[in-house]
């Protein structure tokens, strides 16, 4: 079923992935990475997971969803309850958070995914607000004050493994039959249905998968920052993730990764400017969108093939 190809390209990618892990691990062990840098490193990983998973829903399946922070909240709260209140190990909590978010995705997706375009957007935005409102009113999880004293279990290894796993699973999904079906739905839903694609099934599947990884991101977030509050997961958070996806290019995984990294970096670089930071961020957003509405990468991927091809090293089709 899974064809493992140990060609040159895959080996380079694999080596790169492992190298980055040990590089950061080493830097951390030596103590070069400051606390501030570490926070941003964690945010970077979490943002990449969120952006890539939302890209599956918005970019590849073409369903405009504005409730990603809601799924993140579900994952964060469920995982935090398991570790903090019920003393369960972190992997269990992580999985439970992800599955709860996926279930939430199915529950919200089944009825609302028959809505189109902007109606879906507002319904999912509403869902995010319902989750936040519910969290605000449940005393068991701290109400508006949120949950405090969550053990700090997220470390670089967990984060990196989860990030790579997210990218790997979603990339492979997109290149599978199922992923192709999702892309067909994005391109033309009616035509896809005529071709025998069960559109509802694939839309819900994409939604559930996106939610699953958002749940993981939420769980990682909760176990790094000790504290989660309902106000961490406002619709601005969903916007933020959407901005990364559109910014990087709808339907480009590498684009999402680059955009998530860029936005995390800009946020960190402008940290000292307080309110001015958000003003600059907003202006940048408008300027970049006006001059490059298709996003950084469009729907293309940054591939090693293309990079190597420039040097005339690789032949064969380049994907897109």
């Amino acid at each position: 079923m899974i064809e493992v190809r140990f060609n040159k390209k895959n080996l380079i990618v694999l080596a790169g992935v492992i190298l980055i892990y040990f590089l950061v691990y080493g830097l951390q062990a030596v103590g070069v990475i400051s606390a501030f840098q570490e926070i941003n490193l964690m945010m970077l990983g979490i943002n990449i997971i969120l952006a890539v998973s939302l890209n599956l829903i918005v970019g590849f399946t073409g369903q405009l969803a504005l409730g990603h922070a809601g799924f993140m909240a579900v994952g964060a709260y469920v995982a935090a309850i398991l570790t903090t209140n019920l003393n369960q190990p972190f992997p269990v909590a992580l999985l439970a958070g992800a599955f709860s978010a996926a279930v939430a995705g199915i529950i919200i997706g089944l009825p609302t995914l028959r809505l189109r375009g902007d109606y879906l957007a507002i319904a999912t935005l509403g869902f995010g607000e319902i989750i936040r409102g519910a969290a605000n009113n449940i005393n068991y999880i701290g109400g508006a004050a949120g949950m405090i004293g969550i053990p700090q279990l997220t470390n670089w290894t967990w984060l990196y493994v989860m990030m790579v796993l997210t990218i790997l699973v979603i990339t492979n999904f997109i290149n599978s039959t199922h992923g192709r079906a999702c892309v067909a739905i994005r391109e033309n839903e009616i035509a896809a249905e005529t071709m025998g694609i069960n559109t509802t099934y694939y839309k819900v599947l994409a939604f559930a998968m996106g939610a699953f990884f958002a749940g993981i991101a939420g769980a990682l977030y909760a176990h790094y920052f000790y504290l989660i509050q309902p106000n961490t997961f406002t619709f601005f958070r969903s916007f933020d993730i959407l901005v990364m996806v559109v910014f990087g290019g709808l339907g480009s995984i590498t684009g999402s990764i680059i955009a998530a990294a860029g936005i995390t970096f800009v946020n960190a670089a402008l940290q000292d400017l307080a309110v001015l930071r958000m003003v600059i961020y907003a202006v940048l957003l408008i300027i970049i969108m006006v001059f490059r509405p298709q996003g950084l990468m469009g729907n293309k991927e940054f591939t090693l093939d293309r990079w190597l091809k420039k040097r005339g090293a690789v032949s064969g089709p380049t994907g897109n």
Partner: protein
Amino acid sequence: MAVFFQQIINGLSLGSIYALIALGYTMVYGIIQLINFAHGDIMMAGAYIAFFVVVYLKLNIWWAFIISMIGSALLGVIIERVAYKPLRNATRLAPLITAIGMSLFLENGGLMVLGTDIRSYPGGLITNAQLPLTLFGIRLTATTLQLLILAITIVMMIILQYIVHYTRAGKAMRAVSYDADAARLMGINVDNTISLTFALGSAFAAVAGILLGLYYNNIQPLMGIMPGLKAFVAAVIGGIGLIPGAMVGGFALGIFETMVSGYWSSNLRDPIVFLLLILILLVKPAGLLGKNNTEKV
């Protein structure tokens, strides 16, 4: 029953404000299919323009209304020209992102320039007296402010209906929203018509902003976020793109919201409003007044 009718009165005031904001949302959506997320923040700008007119220019509230409407209309047109017009032929998501950008810009620009202080309009701007009211033998209270809000909203809606249905500009707006390309072929200046729509919607938002500021007796730079979102919900409930839908949705949402706070809990108000939204969309995906169009190949 007293609580019920009292909440209806309160709901009508809040609903009026939602309806006024929702009109701007729905007009813009009707003409370029864009969720103008900056709309709530234009409302905030309108409230502040009125505040400065009243406090520093020492003019009365009616001048504040007029100047604020003109100022907000200009702001709306500038936003459209800068952030949305260049993206008219781009993917639908691109203008949505610039709309979010504009919203963030106005909110944080507002926080930077105006500070986080909560301000309120000086007292005595309007006479705000309690009006004892008897309905079916039940004693209720309404304030003159509540009546004023309702009256202004109704007048504004009549003006809007007149503009949209009985003027050349209104005809152009309807034509562009029906089919922009065909309208262009008929010699309608589509860009100007879209700008006019933004100007009108923003002027309505300004009125809503001032009324909201008077009603809650405070204005602050982030005041546009929640009412803006709720008004959008109202527009969707009524059927987005439909002007009567925005009115119906606004009033319905306002009354529903005050009922939830009155009978149940004001903490649960917002989640329940969004739950209602989802339920309505499930039963009537095109909103209360919208027609369900079957999609043709």
